[in-house]
């Protein structure tokens, strides 16, 4: 087959077919359109202000590695004026996280960004390895998810950043939309497509790759020869999510716009949600100060269950009742350090405009 010229520059040879548009483009044009689309996502949603301190949630995987690279590139190209940091959470999973953290440490050198690693061990006194040895392989991802979310916020507070960006891509968001539909979780359905979320006292979190296809992220990493780590967690994620992902990939193979279409469906629910506005009142956890809709936050409840040998405490209502029936919380119970977030707000208010 004769080589086709790039649909954009019409000079170089086309090397990639864009899943979003079907356009056949060359390597340099691909870099340019990929980066520009992320830039447009950032400016249209007005994610940052000049002077913001932004932490990139870095796992060493493809998405966060590409995100760190692209954030650095755009910050320099368009003078965002951001202070970028890498923030990694060490869940304490032997043979998985310890290897991927080595990748993050190399990224720190390659991108010359300060790196903060915060471990479950130092924060909660438990590694995922020790949690799994107590609770088995059933609810391990529940613990891990709750602990990670809070660890990221705490790490961000330690770095004094205003904002965390994560590498969630369009495929991830579409997958979450599907999962929420299958679970009947309409409340989460709209929220999960939001590009930026912010609680009362928590740090803003956003997803600059909301519209970036996984295929393009992987192609970008491949062509740029970025250094990333790609092993599955040994306490493999739940089978349900695996099926959702496989289903999504089948849909995408049949019609590449499926990913964006599903995100748009999720967004349509979001509008409805604004009207109803039945949000639970937020308060702070009595024990650790983290934001919570109950007197104890989810992490404190889970941790107490672990410490008292009743791992179900934070997972089922029955477990919670059992815990309460066992009597009051012992005095010497391990507690998560108190959470304090002091926003800097010293940043100037120049919005980043599309140039």
């Amino acid at each position: 087959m004769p080589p086709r010229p790039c649909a954009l520059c019409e000079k170089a040879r086309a090397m990639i077919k864009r899943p979003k548009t079907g356009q056949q483009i060359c390597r340099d044009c691909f870099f340019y359109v990929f980066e520009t689309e992320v830039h447009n996502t950032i400016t249209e949603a007005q994610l940052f202000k000049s002077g913001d301190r932004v932490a990139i949630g870095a796992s060493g995987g493809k998405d966060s590695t590409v995100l760190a690279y692209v954030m650095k590139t755009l910050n320099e190209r368009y003078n965002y004026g951001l202070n970028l940091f890498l923030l990694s959470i060490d869940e304490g999973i032997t043979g998985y996280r310890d290897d991927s953290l080595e990748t993050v440490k190399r990224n720190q050198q390659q991108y010359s960004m300060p790196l903060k690693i915060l471990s479950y061990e130092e924060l909660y006194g438990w590694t995922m390895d020790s949690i799994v040895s107590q609770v088995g392989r059933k609810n391990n991802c529940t613990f891990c998810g709750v602990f990670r979310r809070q660890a990221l916020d705490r790490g961000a507070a330690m770095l004094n950043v205003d904002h965390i960006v994560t590498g969630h891509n369009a495929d991830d968001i579409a997958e979450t939309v599907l999962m929420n539909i299958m679970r009947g979780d309409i409340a989460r359905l709209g929220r999960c497509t939001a590009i930026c979320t912010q609680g009362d006292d928590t740090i803003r979190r956003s997803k600059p790759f909301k519209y970036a296809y996984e295929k393009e992220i992987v192609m970008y990493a491949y062509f740029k020869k970025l250094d990333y780590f790609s092993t599955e967690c040994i306490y493999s994620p739940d089978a349900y999510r695996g099926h959702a992902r496989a289903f999504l990939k089948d849909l995408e193979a049949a019609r590449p716009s499926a990913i964006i279409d599903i995100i748009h469906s999720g967004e349509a629910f979001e509008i409805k949600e604004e009207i109803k506005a039945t949000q639970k009142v937020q308060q702070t956890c009595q024990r650790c100060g983290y934001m919570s809709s109950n007197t104890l936050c989810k992490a404190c409840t889970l941790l107490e269950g672990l410490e008292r040998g009743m791992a179900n405490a934070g997972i089922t209502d029955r477990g919670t009742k059992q815990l309460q029936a066992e009597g009051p919380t012992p005095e010497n119970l391990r507690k998560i350090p108190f959470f304090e977030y002091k926003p800097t707000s010293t940043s100037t208010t120049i919005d980043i405009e599309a140039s």
Partner: protein
Amino acid sequence: MAGAETSSVTIKVEFSGGLELLFSNQRSHTLTLPAAVPTDNATTVPVPSTIEATKPADITYLIHYLRDHLLQERAELFEENGTVRPGILVLINDTDWELEGEGDYVVKEGDEVVFISTLHGG
């Protein structure tokens, strides 16, 4: 008789994005394929001389060959319905295989074929 054909093509195959774990944790492999292969992609080597219907070795044949001869575990994570599982990217000489005719691309001496999983880790 087609089976008397002895010519072959040697190519380089690379796995990444976690796929290498299914292939003895080895990223790079050099393979020699028969130049003419059965149209039903049966991968017995050498190609039996009784086979009459042959075609030039293409990527579809390569996928079958890798599954039958190199894959160490969990074939369903690599191959599905005669092609790669959705979510695996294929590059032929650094070009997206979607621009090269996908499975119908006929391999040439010295070609480099890369398989990348997008399904692992985030």
